[in-house]
């Protein structure tokens, strides 16, 4: 599975992305977040405040219940602030 981290989540985790193999029993975005947070403080910090964390699975907005598989691309990012700074 391909993971991507953007904006301050990337800064916190210290990686812009990584490849992982999805362990058995991790079948949703929510379960993936729990798994990643268990990897240490930088993940804990980067993926804090779940309600402000946005997730996309294969380029589509997803939520905690969205099912995932090993062939997916999952991106984690903060609420978007595009367009312009008004």
């Amino acid at each position: 599975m391909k993971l991507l981290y953007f904006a301050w989540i990337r800064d916190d985790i210290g990686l812009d992305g990584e490849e992982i193999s999805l362990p058995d029993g991790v079948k949703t975005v929510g379960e993936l977040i729990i798994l990643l947070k268990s990897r240490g403080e930088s993940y804990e910090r980067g993926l804090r405040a779940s309600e402000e964390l946005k997730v996309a699975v294969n380029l589509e907005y997803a939520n905690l219940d969205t099912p995932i598989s090993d062939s997916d691309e999952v991106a984690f990012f903060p609420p978007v602030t595009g367009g312009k700074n008004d």
Partner: protein
Amino acid sequence: MIKLQVEDFDVSRELSVMLSGHKQVGGVCTFVGLVREYDSSEPLNSLTLEHYPEMTKKELIKIEKQAKEKWTLKDSLIIHRYGRLVPSDQIVFVATASAHRSDAFNSCEYIVDYLKTRAPFWKKEEYKSRVKWVEARSSDEDALNKWEEVAN
């Protein structure tokens, strides 16, 4: 049409390319978003726009398609820059061309509102002494809600 680019754009040239061959366009509404310097004690040095290229493109295509389903448009154009910009730089350009001006105004505002909340862009402001990620504003979500009400 969607363009994601580092380079600046020229509004007149983009408009004339878009309009060439559309003789039945009565009006074009455009929006240009600029890097804004806030009234703060500290001057803004730069604004860096990061994005998620494949998803941004997909979202912008979706937003444009929705606008074309809701209103009668002859053409539309969304240009969004990324990378490092300075105050007063152009960030985004949205243009909608229609036979009728209300369709042009409504669709342009719709695209800008959706773009602000759906397109995966993040902004990092650089000041003399610090760097700061811009946080999302709830007023952007509010701006979207008015379109939901229109839809219902």
